[in-house]
């Protein structure tokens, strides 16, 4: 370690070395590790309504699993065997996030492939631009605009009614279609760019070689392009899944009134519920399950952790 540091300083000079070490430290330790540790610690504490403030830090201020128990089983006088509301919302959030992720992969892989290997010069730039520019619009504005688009009296319903496709308007918001579309749309770039990066580095000759050996286009993708792009696909999926599961603004604005997103429950505990330890426990649970799922998927698809960084 000392040798490595010495070499690092010799190679990059003092100023750059110190700067790099500092920003890395801030990025990883201050911004990431420390807050998570506080949250984690918090999730095992009593709420301030349960403990006399003067006793905080005293031997009576012990660690407790009550918040995690609450997530699973509800309050002690809950007649059901489980905290049905919270657990259901939790499960539904995870499933919906998986669905959004799958939807994005299917949507983005062809686009990324097209950008990387089919489109030429100016078309590529135009497509890139048209992908990036919509994200100049802020998230809230976009969310409310989606309400207009997907509302019962919204543009889509009006067009479908006018064309005679529908007799009755569909409530896209209530059916959560607006939410899934909105989430899918919000994270498209995070899916396209990792896949694009991965696919782009594939040698074109490999595609041609497969074709020359008689392969139809779908098998070329299945056997040559997708295996090669796997780290990129996994990286994109990880980000989209994590962000979808953790989204708050979109579910709040365009989510159906009857279906909560788990983050909304977390938000309620922190905010209206004034129960930070319980909110922390909920947030930690969501994070742990999401990380486990991601690791599981990486294991199934045989993607190594290091490859994601490529």
């Amino acid at each position, binding site marked *: 370690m000392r040798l490595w540091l010495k070499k690092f300083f010799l190679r990059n000079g003092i100023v750059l070395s110190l700067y790099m070490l500092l920003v890395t430290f801030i990025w990883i330790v201050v911004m990431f590790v420390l807050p998570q540790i506080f949250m984690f610690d918090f999730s095992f504490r009593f709420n301030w309504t349960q403990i006399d403030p003067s006793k905080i830090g005293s031997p009576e201020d012990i660690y407790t699993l009550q918040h995690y128990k609450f997530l699973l089983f509800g309050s002690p006088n809950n007649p059901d065997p489980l905290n049905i509301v919270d657990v259901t919302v939790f499960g539904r959030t995870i499933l919906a996030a998986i669905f959004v992720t799958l939807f994005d992969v299917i949507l983005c892989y062809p686009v990324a492939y097209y950008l990387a290997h089919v489109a030429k010069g100016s078309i590529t730039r135009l497509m890139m631009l048209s992908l990036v520019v919509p994200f100049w619009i802020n998230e809230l504005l976009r969310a409310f605009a989606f309400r207009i688009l997907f509302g019962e009296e919204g543009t889509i319903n009006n067009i479908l009614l006018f064309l005679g496709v529908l007799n009755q308007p569909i409530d896209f918001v209530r059916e959560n279609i607006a939410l899934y579309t909105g989430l899918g749309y919000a994270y498209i770039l995070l899916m396209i760019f990792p896949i694009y990066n991965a696919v782009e580095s594939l*040698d074109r*000759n*490999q595609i*041609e*070689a*497969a*074709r*020359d*050996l*008689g*392969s*139809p286009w779908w*098998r070329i993708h299945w*056997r*040559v392009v997708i*295996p*090669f792009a796997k780290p990129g696909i996994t990286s994109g999926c990880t980000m989209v899944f994590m962000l979808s599961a953790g989204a708050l603004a979109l579910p709040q604005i365009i989510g159906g009134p009857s279906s909560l997103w788990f983050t909304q429950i977390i938000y309620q505990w922190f905010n209206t519920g004034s129960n930070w330890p319980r909110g922390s426990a909920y947030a930690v649970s969501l994070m742990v399950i999401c990380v486990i799922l991601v690791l599981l998927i990486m294991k199934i698809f045989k993607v190594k952790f290091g490859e994601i960084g490529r």
Partner: protein
Amino acid sequence: MSADVTLENITVKFDDFTAVNNTDITIKGGEFFSFLGPSGCGKTTLLRVISGFQEPSQGRVLIGGNDMTGIGPNKRPTALIFQNLALFPLMTVWENIAFSLEVKGVSKTKCRKRAEELLELVAMPGQGDKMVNELSGGQRQRVAVARALAAEPEVLLLDEPLSALDLKLRQHMRTELREIQQRAGITFIYITHDQGEALTMSDRVAVMREGVIEQVEEGTKVYDKPVTAFVASFVGENNAFHGTVSNILAAKIVVSTDSGVLEASPAEGSSLKVGDKAIVFARPEAMSFVKRRNLVKNVINTEVVHQEFEGHFWHLILQGVNGLKIKMSQINDGTTEVFEEGKKIKVQIDPKLAVVLPSGPLAAE
């Protein structure tokens, strides 16, 4: 199974640039045929036209008598070996080789068996389970050949596949490719800028320049009897003496050059007339020291610049009239004489080995 390949009036244009211009040629079934030319001469484009990756702007390709127009590369009886081989890095050796069989829906065990057989053919038995990146350059070469042969093509197309190998291996692979071609009994179409490869392996060689085939013949003919100045200067080494035709004799043409009056043989079907601009090409091995003092015909005065030793040959780099660089090669018979720089010597050109061709563009140095 081998098929002949016919190119009919093939022209390929990229915007304003004509990569291949009106090419007509028939490659016989079972032939080892090479396209030889400098980079950018259109040989790779021609190969892509045959394999189906490039639609010609004009003309058509026939393989085994069948018109290939509109037929994709995956449906043609050809297999292409890419310059960088394009092996699939995420598949094992045997999966690479059996890819074309997998595409056809052949069962895994049969694929495996066939891959093993092909590995034997290319002298790599039992290495099917390795990954591509565990192989040496020569082994990858063989796997690429095996993968292409697994598709049972009637025509195998090779795009400078040996260029990445070191000299010894390249020479070895030449012999090996030729042997594989004879065992497999299919048509090989080979693209290269390396005349050594083209001459050693091929039945016939087509020399290309700027999208046009300048000469198609056996290697020995291309070397000994070039028909254009470009072919003479591109294939092998040649000393060029520019001049004007001053007389035409029965089997000789006399050209007056800066270096003196030179006599040399005309090319087949030569249409040179007195007064035409012409070039006398004399290979380094067609030059010799003047033995008889009184001999004056085809003798040029030179000065030694440099001497090189290459094993079976040794070379003299000479300077002639007006600073003309001349190379002369002698077989090493163990009595190599040492020449001092600046020594004046007279050299003779054998008129039977030298050839006169109409003036034209030469290959870039």
